[in-house]
């Protein structure tokens, strides 16, 4: 299935395509309405799953960590551990995986269907560059949305951890926050997490729009491109996460 020459050809085609997309971004600032519309379908419509998932991840983390920490009598560090786990890893990574499944697949399917129904060709024949008008706004919207979604995921997760830890398991509220504020560094932890989510937003949006634009213009072509978006962007996110973590926190 995986042929090295084919894979490299695709990588090259994807990179050239990315350059075209990036070249189309500056003129979007004049037509920001296009991006707003896409941020609605990419960002707002992903918000619900991010809120629910973030809340539950935070709650589960608090339950699990409390169990382990209480055997050492270190429940006071619960907030710190929940916060660090979310801000450094789970926020950016899980948000990116959910984003790939919810928004990335929808982007690929939409662009692929526009190709299959000749809408992209139609634009070209109207002397409108579909990369500038269709692809670039979607890419930019995805790129801008994921860091916001990841921040919301982490914030909601911390609140979920607080709810379980403080309200249900009896950890002291003051200890919960003071441990966090003493030990979580804004630049090393929070900002590095934000940088991660910016990188992931770039990768997932790139893969999603490229797979859509590059797919075979048939039903099977769109279906397999959508699958590839979810699989490839999830793998890319996990792989990049390892690299970024190694660079940032070594």
């Amino acid at each position: 299935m995986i042929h090295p020459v084919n894979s490299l050809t695709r990588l090259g085609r994807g990179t050239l395509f990315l350059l075209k997309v990036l070249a189309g971004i500056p003129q979007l600032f004049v037509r920001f309405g296009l991006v707003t519309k896409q941020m609605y379908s990419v960002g707002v419509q992903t918000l619900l799953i991010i809120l629910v998932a973030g809340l539950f991840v935070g709650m589960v983390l608090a339950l699990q960590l409390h169990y382990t920490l209480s055997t050492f009598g270190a429940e006071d560090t619960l907030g710190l551990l929940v916060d660090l786990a979310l801000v450094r890893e789970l926020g950016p990574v899980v948000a990116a995986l959910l984003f790939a499944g919810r928004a990335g697949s929808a982007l690929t399917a939409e662009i692929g269907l526009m190709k299959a129904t000749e809408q992209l060709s139609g634009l070209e024949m109207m002397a409108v560059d579909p990369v500038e008008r269709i692809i670039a706004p979607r890419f930019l919207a995805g790129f801008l949305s994921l860091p916001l979604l990841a921040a919301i995921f982490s914030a909601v997760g911390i609140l979920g951890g607080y709810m379980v830890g403080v309200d249900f398991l009896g950890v002291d509220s003051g200890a919960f926050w003071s441990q966090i504020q003493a030990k979580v560094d804004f630049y090393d932890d929070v900002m590095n997490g934000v940088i991660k989510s910016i990188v992931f937003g770039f990768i997932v949006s790139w893969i999603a729009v490229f797979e859509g634009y590059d797919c075979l213009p048939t039903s099977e072509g769109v279906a397999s491109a959508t699958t590839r978006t979810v699989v490839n962007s999830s793998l890319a996110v996990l792989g990049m996460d390892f690299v970024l973590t190694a660079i940032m926190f070594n």
Partner: protein
Amino acid sequence: MFKSIELSVGIFVGAGLAALFMLAMQASNLSSISSDGFYEISARFDNIGGLRVKSAVKVSGVKVGQVKAIDYDSESFEAVVTMQVEDKYNQFPKDTIASVFTSGLLGEQYIGLEPGGDEKLLGNQSEIRHTQSAMVLEQIIGQFLFSKASENDNQGF
């Protein structure tokens, strides 16, 4: 219809920025880093143990600053620790003692300052003369065993 899309995107972006703000102010140390200025003092230690950059500097348990840099002076074979102390805590006498302590049995290490009685005060870029190194657990246990062993030897004779 487009207006309602704009509104919901506005709410989304607002929520995202609010979440970032919360992570910055409530869920990290950004709020505890004072916006006031700092002044620097340094101290030399034979051994700093597990002290790291950004470890706390405390007086009577109150955090007054943090470790800015740790260097090794290869001529005197000592560690040179540079600390940032907030400007509002500028009343430390010259003969203040700096020690490396551990919070709890296995906790983080920090620098504890114990003010002396000198009339002159520590200024910017000044150096603390009196220091006490970190206690290294292995050394303490080693000394303890050694003294026990010598007690036993004495009893034997």
